[in-house]
Every structure is written in C-alpha cells, then in structure tokens.
C-alpha cells in the first residue's frame, strides 16, 4: 500500500461486507480505524473504535464526530460505504422503500461528508471517498431507486470536490461491480451473470479490487485527484 493520508480512517457501514473488509484491511496496514454502523461490531483490535450510529441521524452523527475530534484530534479519511439496495421494478417499489434508500444512501452520505469535512478543514488535508455503483452508468433495470440514489451521490461528490478543493481535501467516488456481500443476497445468479456481461472485464468483483482503487485515492501523492468517479470492471 502507498503512504496514505495521515489521521484516522472513518468507515461507515463497518459491521459487515465491504465495510468490514476495509476495516480489517486498513488495520492490518497499521492505520487507526473508526467504524460506524447501526449495530455493534464484533471486530476487536487495539486500533479499532466502533460507534453505533445511523448515518442519517444528524444528532447521532454530530455526537460521534465530536467524540472523534476529542479522542483523535483529526480525521484523515472518510470512506462513505454505508448503503442499502432495493431491487424491484420501479412501478412496484413502495415509496417507503424509496425513502429508506434515499435516507441512507443520499442524506446519510451528505451528512457524513459535511461533518467529516469540518474535522478536515482545520488541518487543510483529507480524503473523502463516496460509494457509487455500476447500476448508475448501466441504467440497470430493476434498480431504479438504488441507481438514482447513487447518481445523486456522483453529482454531490463532484460539487463537493470543487467546494473542498481549496482546503486540500479530495472527494472522489468508487463504483464497485457486484461483489458477493449481503447487498447481493437474494439476487439470482442469472441476474448477476447478465450484469457481468455488460462489464468490459467479465468477472465478479473482489474485495481487493475495492481496496486497490481506494489505495489510489487515499495515497499522499493523489492530492491532485478529485471529483473523479471510478467504476470497476470497465463499466462506463
């Protein structure tokens, strides 16, 4: 791994899936990792600190950030991984589901970015990586709410990159292909296969594909890389 931004790494959706993998990956690299999720984590490590908070809960996120500031002083990186998917035809998707998807994926990500930036602005350095999805550029049928919520994040990422560029904070987004996590539970093999057929490189993504791209965004030398959306697997 290249030298990455100084300061703790905050990972949302840290309890399982990609978030859990990233916690372990950066702990193994010797970083201080702060994870958050709605539920407790069973990850135990001297350099790991967990907060039970819903990313869309403004008060809860505020409390967490105040505590991080007191205990760690500075935040180097935010990996905005928390997200929920909804796979359903648009005409059959209940509004409650749409609300739930947008609350976590859009409002939660925006809130986390805002509060993390407040801890990065004083030291004039930081890395924020939001999580997009290949469902957006593929205009994937059956994932309208999910794809639309992540499309909002793509645009938000690029606007925020402009707003925070002057503070030495980079803001990028990573769009993984399907990776076998809880998010994909219940998705049939046929659907996954047809999605993979639309990628330039036709295989299921792996966790290392995610951490490899993140290492690039987080590298000290990547301070001139911002507002970029990287989709894995050759999707564009």
């Amino acid at each position, binding site marked *: 791994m290249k030298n990455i931004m100084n300061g703790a790494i905050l990972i949302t959706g840290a309890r399982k899936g990609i978030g859990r993998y990233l916690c372990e990956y950066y702990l193994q690299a010797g970083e201080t990792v702060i994870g958050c999720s709605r539920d407790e984590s069973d990850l135990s490590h001297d350099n790991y600190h967990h907060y039970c908070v819903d990313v869309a809960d403004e008060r809860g996120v505020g409390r967490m950030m*105040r505590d991080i500031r007191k205990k760690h002083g500075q935040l180097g990186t935010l990996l905005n991984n928390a997200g929920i998917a909804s796979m359903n035809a648009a005409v059959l998707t209940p509004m409650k589901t749409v609300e739930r998807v947008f609350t976590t994926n859009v409002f939660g990500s925006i809130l986390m970015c805002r509060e993390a930036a407040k801890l990065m*602005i004083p030291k004039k350095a930081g890395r924020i990586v939001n999580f997009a999805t290949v469902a957006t550029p593929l205009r994937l049928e059956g994932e309208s709410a999910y794809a639309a919520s992540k499309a909002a994040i793509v645009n938000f990422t690029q606007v925020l990159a402009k707003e925070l560029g002057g*503070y030495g904070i980079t803001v990028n987004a990573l769009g993984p292909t399907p990776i076998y996590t809880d998010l994909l539970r219940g998705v049939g093999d046929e659907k996954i296969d047809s999605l993979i057929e639309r990628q330039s490189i036709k295989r299921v993504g792996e966790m290392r594909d995610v951490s490899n791209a993140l290492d690039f965004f987080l590298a000290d030398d990547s301070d001139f890389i911002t507002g970029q959306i990287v989709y894995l697997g050759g999707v564009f």
Partner: protein
Amino acid sequence: MSSSSTNSSTSDASATQNSPTVDNSAREQIFSIISDAITDLNDELDYDHLREISNTTAVFDGDDSLDSLSLVSLIVDIEARVEDSFTTEVVLASEKAMSMKNSPYRNVASLVDFVLEELANQKAS
C-alpha cells in the same frame, strides 16, 4: 423570518452590550473565542485589519471581508471552540444564518450575538 426578529438577532454591539438580558461573562467568553480564532486564522492570512480585534472588526462585510474559504475555516473553528467551552453544540453555518437579512458574519459583534442566540436556543430545546 420577520424583520423584527432579524433586527433583534443581528443588532450591533453598541445596542446589545447594554442589554440587561445579555449574560456579560458569556459575551466576554465568546468574544474571546472569536478573537482567538480570528487571530489564529490571521497567522496564515496576515491581514492588517485583523491584527487588533474589536467588536467592529469586519469579518465578512465590505472591502475587508475574508474570502469564502477563510470564512468557512473560521466558522468551523469557532463551532469547535464554543463546543469545547460550553459543552454545547452550536451550528453557525445554518440555513437561518444564510437567510438573515443582515448577515451574522459581518463583524465580530454580530458574530458574538449570533453565537449567544444559538447557545440560548440550544439550552431552550
């Protein structure tokens, strides 16, 4: 927001300093917080008009304004310092602040008033 509430929340130091309802020790403490934050910011900026801080020192008003990047840095720093001193969270970059007819960021006195008001609102809620 009504014009009357706008006026009361952004009145100048000369008026609010004499108000019997204002806690003077809190006012002095907040003035000190804001003054320290501006001084720290000015270590980097080195603006002449920010070397001596008074109630009338311009923050975001007229020719002596901070640029928007510096204003955001200052507001974030003041929020953190107020929180440390009063163990209460205040949000100074609120929709309310942005929509006020007279910006609470225009000078030190208006900023002190705004912090006091937000602290009072937090206690009341």
